[in-house]
């Protein structure tokens, strides 16, 4: 007879660990099954972790956790083939408590978090893949089957926190297989400047104009994604840089782009190349990101089961947010499991409280707000192609001093914009999508 737990969590990412931590702190008997050799082993996010939502589950985590740098500046670049229009915001207030966000390497961060959750009393089983869910005669989820000998386990509730692909929620028919335009593929490198750790940190601070310990982020739109709906991103870590490019999975096929080549070409853009001078590639990795938006969110619960984080397509690509949606959904699913445990009722009706609670949070509210964003971008590729190029041309004209009288220059720039009605319509369309 397989051992029985109160709750089995599949996946030791942010959503799964948040759920587990919430539950063990209330005394539930929780086991977390993770495919990677340790929590974080399979994670590619070298990205931005937000302080407030994360500390709702892990108070003051940044005091002990391996975070890289507090983010004090967030930039956005619009790129043409050889130039860039840059905008951003910097605030020294973000260098102090209460911080806004940190750059992290999730491989390290999740390993730390996993240990914390294990110390709190959850059993974390690494190197083990859940291959199927066990169901009783009436279809209710009652446990999991792993790829190990004697690998079945039983539980009152299974929480699916298995990330973007989530084959398990597909297996129990909560959704059909994601379409290629419901997922983005990001490829990323960790780049290390030359020297020892403190020398590398110094080089990064000099190149990016940062005070010791401070960090910044750059999101890039335009030429780097070669017409595909996507972005490039650059984050400063303690002594390395995370640089990556992501685009809709469907677009790679349509535009015949090879993700690795795309990244290598992007690194050579004249606005970026000097920032990477002398850097050595430490790591290369690829991962999927849910991009289906609100309409792709599967049913979040069924009898004996809840779905959280990326597995439930809870990701807001437009704002580079996923970790916070993962933590928040994990926490609410954990709380719902505690209530179900206290009631001794694990049917869908009780677990529906999770979906109801999530509806009231920024998670669902934001995703509903941006419901059409992804499709809109797919249909309006000019936002990734002609507009960034046009803006760069305009800026070049504007900043070039060539004895042309300013009135003439302005008229020239005005004409560069081409069809104003089309632009006005596009801007209005964009406004409607994000309003």
């Amino acid at each position, binding site marked *: 007879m397989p*051992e029985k737990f109160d709750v089995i969590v599949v996946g030791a990412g942010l959503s799964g660990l948040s759920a587990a931590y919430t539950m063990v702190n209330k005394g539930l008997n929780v086991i977390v099954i993770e495919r990677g050799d340790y929590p974080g082993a399979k994670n590619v996010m070298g990205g931005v972790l937000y302080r407030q939502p994360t500390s709702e589950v892990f108070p003051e985590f940044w005091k002990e956790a391996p975070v890289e740098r507090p983010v004090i500046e967030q930039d956005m670049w619009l790129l043409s083939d050889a130039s860039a229009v840059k905008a951003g915001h910097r605030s020294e207030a973000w260098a102090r408590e209460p911080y806004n966000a940190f750059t992290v390497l999730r491989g390290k961060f999740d390993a730390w978090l996993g240990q914390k959750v294990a110390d709190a009393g959850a059993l974390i089983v690494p190197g083990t893949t859940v291959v199927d869910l066990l169901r009783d005669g009436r279809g209710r989820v009652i446990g999991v089957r792993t790829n190990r*000998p*004697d690998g079945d386990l039983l539980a009152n509730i299974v929480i699916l926190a298995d990330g973007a692909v989530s084959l398990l929620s597909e297996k129990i028919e909560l959704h059909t297989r994601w379409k290629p335009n419901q997922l983005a593929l990001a490829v990323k490198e960790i780049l290390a400047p030359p020297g020892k750790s403190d020398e590398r940190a110094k080089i990064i601070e000099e190149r990016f104009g940062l005070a010791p310990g401070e960090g910044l982020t750059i999101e890039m739109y335009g030429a780097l994604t070669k017409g595909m709906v996507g972005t490039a991103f650059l984050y400063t870590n303690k002594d390395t840089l995370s640089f990556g490019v992501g685009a809709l999975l469907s677009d790679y096929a349509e535009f015949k782009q090879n993700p690795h080549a795309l990244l290598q070409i992007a690194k050579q853009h004249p606005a970026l190349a000097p920032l990477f001078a002398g850097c050595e590639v430490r790591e290369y990795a690829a991962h999927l990101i849910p991009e289906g938006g609100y309409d792709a969110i599967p049913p979040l619960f069924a009898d004996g089961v809840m779905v959280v984080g990326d597995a439930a397509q809870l990701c807001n690509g437009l704002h580079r947010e996923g970790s916070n949606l993962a933590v928040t959904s994990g926490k609410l699913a954990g709380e719902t499991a505690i209530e179900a445990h206290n009631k001794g009722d694990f049917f869908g009706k009780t677990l529906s409280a999770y979906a109801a609670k999530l509806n009231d949070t920024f998670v669902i509210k934001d995703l509903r707000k941006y419901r059409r964003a992804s499709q809109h971008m797919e249909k309006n590729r000019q936002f990734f192609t002609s507009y960034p190029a046009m803006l760069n041309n305009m800026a070049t004209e504007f900043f070039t001093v060539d004895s042309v009288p300013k009135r003439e220059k302005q008229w020239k720039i005005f004409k560069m914009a081409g069809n104003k009605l089309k632009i006005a319509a596009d801007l209005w369309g964009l406004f409607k999508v994000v309003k």
Partner: protein
Amino acid sequence: MHVVVCVKQVPDTTQVRVDPVTNTLIREGIPTVVNPFDYYALECALSIKARFGATVTLISMGPPDAVKSLKKCLAYGADRAVLLTDRAFAGSDTWATSYALSAAVRRLSQDEPVDIVICGKQTIDGDTAQTGPGIARHLGWQQVTYSTGVEHVDPDARTITAERKLERGKEIVRTTLPVVVTVVEDAPEIRYASLPGIITSLRYTPETWSVQQVDVELANLGLKGSPTKVKRIFAPPQRSGGEVVSVEKAGLVDAVKSAVDVLHTQGVL
């Protein structure tokens, strides 16, 4: 039957680099792993347990952090794990280490007499292959080195039959218990740990023994108990690339000719 497996937690040497200036090992940030040869030793023990019945105990000497490796190994189906950890052990060479481990084996024998001690052929950080034989000498037991597996254990006759790997071929030996066996990488690979095994190991806390728990002379431990002194560590000089004779450019016959010439002038042929 009581089988003891010796396990060492080592730096992942595939990631260790030598500082070209100071000639010391850069250990900063290098993850630790179970010495890969020890997995073959463990599998050998588990296979004895499965075929002939045995208690399998793991012992390791190392820093407190080495409980990690013991827990990891326990998941495969061992019954008990003991870590020898004490400042007094630090800096021990292979002589002092095998002395300490043999004392631990004696201590374990008080609970259930130990019949077989199994070690990996060598460690990937020291590469000496001396610890296993050292334990045998300290205990005054038989030893079977470079074994590819234990074929048979006869508890009544108190013998084992094991296969040894030789430079050319193999050898099957029978010897009497108690015995120390060291296992090579041609032995069967470690089985896949079962889920209950892993869960058991997650809940298990290995015992930790200091010098108090084992019968040892302090003078025989650590740096001062170690006859080996490390004089210098250095990276071997980089070898220059060999000569390339292109068949495409020279044609097959001439290429072979000039290759043979080179071998002649270098005295290889």
